[in-house]
């Protein structure tokens, strides 16, 4: 019997599994037109949460390299739809779970894809790590700083591979920049812009904060639809009477689950900046907010959030309707500026950039990382760092004051209420996982 790749990855058997993988030609006759891939070379994946991003064609996919074998949702309609789609798209009956713990402990699953609302991310990632699974987690990584710390600890302790799913530090065109971040990274690293640098993430530089992603006040309780297990949807979040606006397509507008446009777009926008500025191993030391008072439940809007690093680098977020007027640079240093669309004050910039060394190559094939047990280039540590920038902003907004942060201890300085937001209470039995 061929031992499967997943037990090779997970169990011990000191190298035994390697020799039992049958050579490909043994299966050669089986394939027809389709290229046959030995199951032992295949990875498998299960998705928790198939309501939104989990059903995107990007993720709801199955191929020779990685088969989708299981899905989980607390909304029966979502689950039925996913199983149906699995039959139609991949000719496969997906294992369908209501309780995500069953998916995490399913021995057929190698990789747990976490596509739930973010109040679940930390707990599910920690439990997946404890169960010996590798993790593909949607952004934002966690909704509190404390949960991020626990994910980092668990992934390291059990030697798992973790990937956070935001990709702008790699290949995709980075919104207003009009290019990938690579040329900007080269320019910044060369010192041609000088130091320290200020980055402005704003409508004025080509980024939108999606302010309509806010919550509603005074929601009146509604009956829970029969297809939804609302208690399980809430999980660790405090109980609040059901209202359809709290869940599914609009949950981001509530502090209990995420932090509006800041939470949703923040990590997409800020993670690449941490990379560009070389801040992947540290945090800002100060966050300052200019915002109307926030409701304790429904996320509101803000005018600006300014992060300052110890060396004077800054990230300024400008809310919709409060953008700087006129032409403002996306990134600005004492010696040069780069504007939206990569307009810049550096003469012949592309000649300059082309002659500079490329940034260090990065490991960006997650499945290869899983097979070779290498860190993915945006792993739990880097993800926790950029998620923390977002979550610091949320803490400052909720308290409506400037906060100071100690990167070494990952605690706020001289503000106990802010520190109480680092770890937030959870409902039983979920408190235990974190």
């Amino acid at each position, binding site marked *: 019997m061929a031992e499967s790749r997943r037990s090779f*990855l*997970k*169990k*011990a*058997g*000191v190298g035994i599994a390697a020799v039992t993988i049958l050579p490909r030609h043994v299966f050669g006759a089986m394939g027809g037109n389709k290229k046959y891939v030995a199951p032992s070379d295949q990875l498998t994946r299960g998705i928790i949460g198939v*309501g*939104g*991003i989990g059903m995107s064609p990007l993720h709801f996919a199955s191929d020779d390299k990685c088969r989708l074998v299981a899905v989980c949702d607390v909304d029966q309609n979502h689950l039925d739809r996913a199983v149906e789609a699995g039959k139609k798209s991949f000719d496969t009956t997906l294992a369908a779970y209501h309780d995500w713990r069953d998916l995490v402990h399913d021995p057929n699953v190698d990789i747990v894809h976490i596509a739930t609302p973010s109040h679940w991310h930390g707990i599910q990632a920690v*439990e997946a790590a*404890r*169960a*010996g699974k590798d993790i593909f987690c949607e952004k934002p990584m966690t909704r509190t700083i404390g949960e991020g710390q626990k994910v980092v600890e668990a992934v*390291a*302790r*059990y*030697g798992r591979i973790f990937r956070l799913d935001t990709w702008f530090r790699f290949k995709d065109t980075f919104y207003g920049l009009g290019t990938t971040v690579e040329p900007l990274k080269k320019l910044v690293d060369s010192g041609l812009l000088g130091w320290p640098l200020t980055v402005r993430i704003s409508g004025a530089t080509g980024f939108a904060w*999606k302010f309509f992603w806010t919550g509603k*006040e005074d929601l*009146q309780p509604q009956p829970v639809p029969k297809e939804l297990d609302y208690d399980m949807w809430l999980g660790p979040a*405090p*109980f609040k009477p059901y209202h359809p606006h709290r869940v599914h397509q*609009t949950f981001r507008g509530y502090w209990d689950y995420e932090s509006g446009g800041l939470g949703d777009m923040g990590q997409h926008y800020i993670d690449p900046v941490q990379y560009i500025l070389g801040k992947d191993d540290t945090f800002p030391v100060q966050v300052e*907010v*200019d*915002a*109307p*008072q926030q*409701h*304790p*439940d*429904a996320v509101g809007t803000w005018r600006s959030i300014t992060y300052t690093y110890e060396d004077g680098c800054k990230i300024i977020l400008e809310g919709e309707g409060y953008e700087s007027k006129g032409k403002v640079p996306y990134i600005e240093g004492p010696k040069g500026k780069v504007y939206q669309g990569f307009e810049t004050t550096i003469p012949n910039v592309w*000649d300059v950039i*082309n*002659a500079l*060394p*490329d*940034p*260090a*190559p990065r490991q960006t094939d997650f499945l290869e990382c899983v097979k*070779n*047990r*290498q860190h993915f280039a945006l792993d739990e540590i880097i993800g926790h760092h950029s998620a923390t920038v977002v979550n610091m902003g949320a803490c400052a907004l*909720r*308290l*409506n*004051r400037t906060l100071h942060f100690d990167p070494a201890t990952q605690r706020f300085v*001289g*503000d106990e*209420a802010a520190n109480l937001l680092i*770890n937030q*209470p*959870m409902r*039983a*039995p*979920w*408190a*235990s*996982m*974190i």
Partner: protein
Amino acid sequence: MKKIFSLLISVLLLATAAYGQDARGRVPETIVNDVLVAMPAPDASRFAADMKDLAASAPTTVELLCKRVANDGTKIARYQYALSGVVAYVSGASGSNHRARVAEGLRQGIATAKDPTFRHFLLQQLRLIASQEDIATFQAYAEDPEAAGTAISALVDLPGTEAVLMELVNEGKAPKAQLAAAVARKGLKEAEPALLAWGPVAAAEDKPAICHALGRIGSEASASWLMTESPADYAVLLGNLPGDRALKAAQGLLKSDRADLRCAAVPVVVANAPAKAGLKTLADIMKNDVRPVRNAALQAATDAYGTQAVAPVLTKKYASWSDDAKTDVLNWLGTHGIRCDQVVIPAMAADGELGQTAVKVAGQVGGPLCGKALVACLGTNKAVPAMAALKSYREDLSQEVLAALAAPKNDAQRENLMYLASAKHMTAAAPTVIEQASKGSAAAIRALRGVVTESDADVVSTLLVHAEDAQVPALQEALLAALHTQRPDDQTAKVKNLLTSAPDRSRFYPVLARIGSDESVNTLRAFSAKEPAAKSALLTMKNPAILPDLLAAAREGDERSLERYIWMLSDSHNEPDFKRLGLAEAIKLAKSPAIRAVAVDKLGNIPQMKAFLLAGKSLDDRNADVRMAAASAVKRIASKTTEEINYDDLKANLEKASKLFRTRGWADDGYAVDEINKMLLEAKPSPRSVLTEEEKAQGFEMLFDGTDLSKWHGDMEGYTVVNGTISVSANYGATGNLYTNKEYRNFIYRFEFCFMEEGVNNGVGIRTPENVDAAYHGMCELQILDHDAPMYADLRPYQVHGSIYGIVPAKRIKHKPLGEWSTEEIIVEGDHITVKVNGEVITDADVRKVTEGHNVAPDGAKVNPYTIDGHNHPGMFNYKGHISFCGHGAGLKIRNVRILDLGYKK
């Protein structure tokens, strides 16, 4: 109920009276009222001021807020703002002196709260400012189904709560998972017996928490149960056991068949073993275990002993390990930036992952020897990773590259070196690359673009002229690269110069197209009449000057040009009207739904009412993508436009869009639905005009009641229905005239008008045929003019509002301010015209009498002495005709248009 309530208030008032007033002489009741109406605070300073007021009069203010929530039913948001706000305020440095009193108010509120969700909210608030005095409150709610999590967390966060937590553990009534979590976070070792007692009989969902906690606080006593129940937590427990025992157990766990548990055991071994033994374990693992464990061991040993101590072990034993383990060592060197040429460079020769990794690590650690070795690799089967490493190499390797290029080991190395020289813009390599290119080397031709400079342009041009077809694109790139430091006009001139002597000039067209200057556009356009190659090149340009060319091609059925046209038009700096009309045509031209969807989507960037209506038409498109593009477009326009959109159209289109978003149901579509609902809530239905009872009795007919223009025709672009009015916009590309469907002779015509902009100019055409100037070819035009505008300072009397244009001046009135409505009545009987504005007669004349019957000059001359303006008015005695609005620009609104047809008798 009411009675109890007022009693309650009076008791409270008594209490507050006893408490006193604030600096502004307000009792707490007043402060609460003042703050509530100001919620939420718009900014930090207002926030601080309001919250300071609340806090300074706590606990009474806080108690009042809590009490009144219960009486205020469903609208509690402002109370939530006030309460969470005052808590946030006193939790900070500036409000900390009021903290105890606010907490006291919250405790009172918690004690009296009826609604469990609201009580939980108060407990959450109290947690943020809690002190020793609050312990009892939290303890009281540790068993509460909703609030237990918050209550127990609060106890964990407070110092000195160990005894209370132990009490709760021993009672065992609060949720067990919650208590276990508290035990773990608080490190309550004395809870171990209780947890161990719970463990075997606990509910399945509580077990993970209990195991987790025992892993953190447990002793030897928990080891055996944990080992079977939760090996993952057992591995954690080991770290807390006394040194010898930990070491022994962890070494035992290293024999587990689960790699993740061996990973967890490694740090325990390393932490408890002497350095020598720990490093020995590392070496054993490197020799025998699988990759995750090897890496965990490397990490643990590095953390415990440092790279200085670990490196010698690795290099010493390295040779005896498997290639996989060697790979891990190399990765470790790369991660920690440790240069170790004697390990890395030989490994670069290895096959498989080891060799590939060595090449990668050589790039990471750098140094002259690694650099040279990487350059040598460019001629081997590791050229790909070597190239990646060299492209990101921090040190300058141009000397090594040029030296190797002078004497390459094989063709592959030469080609790769040329590629690298090109990527790094090593212009010194140009002569070699050009030489190879002239010999026909495809790699050299591709590399030219990175090394050539201005002085090479002629050589490249010659190569381009004589190249095989396959090489042409790379040589075009090279020519562009050679010229790119010059100004675009000079580049165009140079290429024009080069192409005149070329046997096949079409090879230069794509180059001209890429230069992109206006002169390039002109040149290619001139050629394109006869040469399809020039036309193709022209249509690829990025210069918006080619918009007409793209449109012409699109009209001939070229979909690719149509798509480019849509994008370029949308990104251009043209007027919104121009863009909208262009996109409207594009929607009609598009054969593929994908392109139609792009055009509809781009309409969404034009914040105009007309773009809204146009996009709305695609909400029912047969293609789903087009429908979604339309939904997005109408939503974006409605949220951005400053123009008024007719309520019925707004409602119809947004409701359709909302349904489309709801049906699609993507991750964030719910927010689109929200946004639309909000816009619909804020919009108001259009008012509708009705005839008065008297008008009805007399037989008046409504010509425009605010809903539609079904009784009108003409310039429907310029005259649109907006919220119960006819709104006149700039009549771009249209006639500017709106006509009644029917023709009239004698009538009473009534309407209301309003100027939205200064200087509005329009008129009412009487008895006019279509598409002529009513002032001359109709009976007349009665002026509608904002004659008060400064721009009309030099107006002639027969041009003021209400005048029979060119024939009879009206009495000059003073118009109402912009945006206010006036009434107008026009009575036409036979040759007699009366005009009333706001009830005042301003014109009253018989045109036949005034002109003594001479609508035109008696002698047929151009100058007519019988009219004031000296012009002929041939239509003056028309028997009948349409009534029209004669537009001359934007800014007029008209409503409530009605007519009494008096027939043809006079």
